[in-house]
């Protein structure tokens, strides 16, 4: 039987403002979970405005785990990742409060996790591993923002990110086929920042195509208002449409969606964010099988009553 191992990755990632930093991931086994502990020392100004909402997450402008042209996990806003983890881990991820102006410099610990399987509390869940030992290279890349813009005016920051790897290692005589008899499942993550602009969209008329080709497991959704903060008032309804069958199999009020997903994931309600499981639509299994679908066959829809600017951060997670 294969064994699970946990160890600190050799490389860590330094924080450098407005820079993209790359590090190597160790390649000794099949990675089932990666923990990224952000240790950011935040120095507040003597006076001024309070720090931004989700300040540390905003510092992450991009993140990617990849090997050559193959990407295993990627986001283009740290809030997509944080709120994915929020629902996976019942809102209990480590996130130190950023100090207010006039306060002491504080090291903020922020744990973000990449777990690609469906048993979030099994660190050696073999469902969707990254086959690190079979790869010629495996890298992680973070694009950093800057403290003055993302944390708050007058703030500065320094620090680094420690990585903890959780992996399955084969025993002598054991083969990959013993654990993955029909092959390994591959993850596909597609982040999208959808700018709805200032116009209103009535009756679910704001539509966006969801990615096709694999099994769509869940979509992380974060609604941002014109100030860039999470909001529950900019979107009032959410739905799914299947144009080819001329059907709208699912729609709910935004607050009801949040309440339902909060119950499903056992996570406290949080303003402006949810994690939509596509098995709600398919009715079974891991999610919605999109292998025979074409782009445009499935649309995610929203109603936006107001005429102020709003963005939706989407994070589609597929398995193939």
């Amino acid at each position, binding site marked *: 039987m294969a064994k699970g191992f946990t160890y600190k990755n050799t490389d860590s990632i330094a924080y450098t403002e407005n820079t993209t930093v790359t590090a190597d991931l160790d390649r000794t086994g099949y990675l089932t979970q990666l923990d990224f502990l952000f240790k950011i020392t935040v120095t507040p100004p003597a006076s001024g405005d309070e720090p931004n909402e989700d300040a540390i997450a905003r510092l992450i402008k991009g993140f990617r785990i990849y090997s050559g042209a193959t990407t295993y996990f990627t986001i283009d806003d740290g809030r997509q990742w944080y709120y994915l983890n929020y629902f996976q881990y019942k809102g209990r991820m480590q996130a130190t409060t950023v100090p207010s102006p006039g306060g002491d410099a504080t090291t903020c610990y922020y744990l973000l996790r990449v777990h690609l399987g469906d048993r979030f509390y099994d660190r050696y869940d073999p*469902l969707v591993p990254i086959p690190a030992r079979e790869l010629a290279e495996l890298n992680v890349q973070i694009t950093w923002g800057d403290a003055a813009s993302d944390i708050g005016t007058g703030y500065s920051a320094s620090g680094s990110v420690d990585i903890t790897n959780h992996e399955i290692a084969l025993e002598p005589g054991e083969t990959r086929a013993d654990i993955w008899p029909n092959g390994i499942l591959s993850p596909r993550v597609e982040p999208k920042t959808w700018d709805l602009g200032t116009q209103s969209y009535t009756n679910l008329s704001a539509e966006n195509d969801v990615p096709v080709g694999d099994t769509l497991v869940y979509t992380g959704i974060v609604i941002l208002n014109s100030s860039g903060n999470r909001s529950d008032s900019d979107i009032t309804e959410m739905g799914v449409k299947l144009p080819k069958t001329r059907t709208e*199999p699912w729609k709910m009020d935004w607050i009801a969606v949040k309440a339902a997903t909060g119950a499903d994931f056992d996570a406290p309600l949080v303003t402006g964010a949810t994690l939509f499981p596509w098995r709600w639509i398919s009715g079974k299994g891991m999610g919605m099988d999109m292998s025979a679908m074409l782009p445009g066959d499935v649309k995610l829809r929203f109603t936006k009553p107001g005429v102020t600017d709003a963005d939706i951060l989407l994070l589609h997670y597929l398995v193939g």
Partner: protein
Amino acid sequence: MLGNVIDRVAGVRVFDVPIGKALLILTSIGVGKGVSDIVYSKWPTAGRYAGLIAGGGLAVACKKIGAVRRFLGETGAETLAIGGASAAILSLYDVQGWVESKLAGIAPATPVVTAGATSRTVGAPQEYLSDVERKASSIRRAAIS
């Protein structure tokens, strides 16, 4: 002798459907897989080859050892040999899963969706098993075996 019993079971037909032979085939595959599991539990490093060795050995023993063949009878020996060979093949290749996925790919069940703003996808609990679901279930099965 066991051969007589097996012959009688093999002769059972309902509406001319060979129920008895089907029962024997299923029983023999069960015996083949059971023997494979015993070999695997005693010799785990053999891995999936435990099934090949045990199943293949059972098939050869049934057909080539005279005493065994006489005890089982011709029908019994043939059936158990088929069971042993099936277990050997199954240990190396998931033939059943492969065939199921191919057939499902030809004729996927279409989900029935009712119209209306408040409706939801109903029925057609999809018989179609996607490749992802098939892989996922095989990973889960391997994890608990």
